[in-house]
């Protein structure tokens, strides 16, 4: 039970961090580094809504 909770909490934290990075990228012209993967349409829609 505890292991499952830890797994779920870590997954939640990862998801939060990932979403933050995605939103940060959506709010800016580019990232710190010289590579920019194609931004998914779903993220654009999320930003607009």
């Amino acid at each position, binding site marked *: 039970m505890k292991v499952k909770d830890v*797994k*779920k909490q870590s*997954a*939640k934290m*990862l*998801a939060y*961090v*990932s*979403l*933050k*990075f*995605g939103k*940060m*990228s959506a*709010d*800016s*012209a*580019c*990232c*710190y*580094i*010289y*590579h*920019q*993967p*194609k*931004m*998914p349409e*779903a*993220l654009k829609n*999320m930003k607009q809504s």
Partner: protein
Amino acid sequence: MKQLSEKIAKYVIKTGVVSPELYVVYQYGFQIGLEMLCCFVTCLSIAIYMHMIPEFAIFTGIFMLLRTYAGGVHLNSFGSCFICSVTVQTIAMYFNSKYKFTVGTAWLLILVSAILILKAAPVECINRELDDAEKEHCKKVTMKVLIAVIVFAGCCTLAGIPDILSLVALTSFIILISQYVGILKYKIEKSKNKRR
């Protein structure tokens, strides 16, 4: 990095904390985060090895803030991007430790770069095209960041730290070059896409 980000995104979805429809959003976020982290840690390690942590902090701070909103060149693969990012940063710090601009030259470079950066901002990339509202927002923030950079340069001059002033000038100049290379690359890629 893409494969690793895909694995993490799949893991997060498997645990049931996020909806599977948002897989692409999370995968994209993980990829961006991992690439940035990887690059940042490598550059920081090099800065520690070179005993140039304050210089690294100033270069990265200005570079990140300006590039995020003013834009610049983007390479097509993470490998080439990683090598380019690390090389540019290392060369900039090494150059600044060996050769320094005089106060007058540094100020000239900062002011000319600031004007040209603002004029060119924001630079788009084929994978991240901006709409009018985004362009306006990026331009406004770029102007604020540039004012902060000029104020910081003024403080360095008053405090008598020409080394840092020279680094600020060099960083601004690198961002300017990156922007113009980015504009050129974007135009070439756009015309290639139109021909297809």
